[in-house]
């Protein structure tokens, strides 16, 4: 089970003086251990900024973040992180890229050979371990990046629109992978997205973020059965959640 993340009065302002941009907050939020929380909002609302502050990769202007009551003061190294633009390097193969996560941590990738193989198989990349990223489709690259983010067995995962640049079919299939993993291991997941449907399908809780300066406008627990397959997505309850959130964005003037 993953960490419990406490966010207290967190805010971010970029720049100083009259040119300063109040990007985000203040936000108070508790992300419970083992939950899948989506930060759902329009582009530019600061949801990625919030994710970076949770990871300790960006300093907050005000407020604090706690991982299991431990204050975040430096980049967290016990997390797995994924961005919209993947962090695969072009000079390494798929396997080499997954191993890069380990090598940067000073771990011996040979000790993880079986885990790397299993991970690649779990996202249907068996047989592609020796290929370079440029030989793969966008969806396969993102699957490889997924393995890279997971190989060191983090129990907290931070995803910043990892499916943002993929086509609808590929998105659907990677969502299923993601959901399967989460149901099996129950890490704490923070998932930044601007797709309402994606947030409702994957999350135990959806945090609706307001336009800039971003705040958590509403927190909605999604009470739908798992796994959220096509049948669940076709159900009236699913549609109800999507409509409800669309209504909220409509009130914000976004939709």
């Amino acid at each position, binding site marked *: 089970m993953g960490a419990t993340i406490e966010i207290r009065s967190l805010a971010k302002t970029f720049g100083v003086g009259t040119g300063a941009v109040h990007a985000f907050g203040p936000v108070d939020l508790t992300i419970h251990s083992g939950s899948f929380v989506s930060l759902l909002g329009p582009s530019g609302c600061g949801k990625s900024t919030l994710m*970076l502050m949770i*990871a300790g*990769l960006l300093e907050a202007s005000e407020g604090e973040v706690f991982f299991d009551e431990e204050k975040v003061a430096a*980049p*967290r*190294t016990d*997390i797995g*992180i994924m*961005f919209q*633009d*993947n*962090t695969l*390097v*072009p*000079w390494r193969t798929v396997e080499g890229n997954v191993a*890069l*996560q380990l*090598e*940067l*941590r*000073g771990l011996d990738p040979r000790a993880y050979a079986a885990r790397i193989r299993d991970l690649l198989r779990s996202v249907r990349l068996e047989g592609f371990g020796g290929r*370079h990223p*440029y030989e793969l489709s966008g969806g396969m690259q993102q699957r490889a990046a997924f393995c890279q983010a997971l190989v060191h067995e983090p129990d907290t995962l931070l995803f910043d629109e990892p499916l943002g640049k993929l086509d609808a079919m590929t998105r659907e299939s990677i969502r299923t992978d993601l959901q399967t993993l989460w149901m099996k291991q129950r890490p704490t997941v923070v998932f930044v997205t601007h797709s309402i449907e994606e947030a409702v399908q994957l999350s135990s809780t959806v945090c609706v973020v307001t336009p800039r300066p971003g705040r958590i406008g509403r927190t909605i627990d999604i009470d739908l059965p798992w796994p959220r397959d096509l049948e669940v997505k076709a159900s009236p309850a699913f549609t109800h959640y999507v409509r409800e959130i669309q209504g909220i964005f409509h009130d914000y003037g976004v939709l």
Partner: protein
Amino acid sequence: MTMVSSSMPPEPGPIIRAVTAAALAVWRSWPFLAFFIGFFLAWEYAVILFKVPGYILPTPSEIVRRGWADIPRLIDYTLVTGMESVLGYLLAIAVGVPVGVAIAFWEPLRRTVYPFFVSLEMVPKIAFAPLFIAWLGFGLLPKVIIVVLVCFFPVALNSIHAFGSLSDELTRFCRSTGAGRLRTFWKVRLPAALPQCFVGFKYAALNATVGATIAEFMGSDQGLGFYINIATGNMRPDLAFAGIFFLTLLGLALFGCITLAEKLLIPWHITQRRH
């Protein structure tokens, strides 16, 4: 299945494949070859047709004949100019890359030395050549220094750019692993910087022979620049052209080496990929 495979033509051997590939390459480049040969034929016959005197413009065949007669000296001087170019070039890389890394990673240098370098880039470095000849004489050293001077800036400026432009995502990814600066440098920053570094290396390779030749024009008793200078002074354009031909070979060899190094070091880069 056996029926099908037995009716297939046999796999060609490696020699046949290589010959086929070479023949194909020649066939594909025939427009270039035709133009190349046509150019020299046109030169040859234009000189004969218009009765251009040999001390103004010799024919290509004359250049080959006279050059061949002086081949030991031409080879000797090619080695001299080659030594100056290669030494200066390697020295420029050995100094330019670390300087580029230092400026890319250290804020105070980026605020002081970097703008100074950018403004120096506007100065035609070759204008310093007479000064170095005056200070250091006719030997190898002033030529090497001039080559360093014309090669250093493209190397250093491209290195600054190369090491200072890792994507936000990769920078954050590295930080989230807790890797130290040194490990991040070897595993990520250095390989990521190589393609841009090679842009500078290639540009500098073109400069290297130019620098060495001009330095020899200004004060020297050997080398291809010296040879061309003397030949022109003696109204022997045939020998000057022979010297230019060897300079071209030298430049091609240097550029070929750096292109090969690029192929070996960054085969993954988009400029190196086949298909």
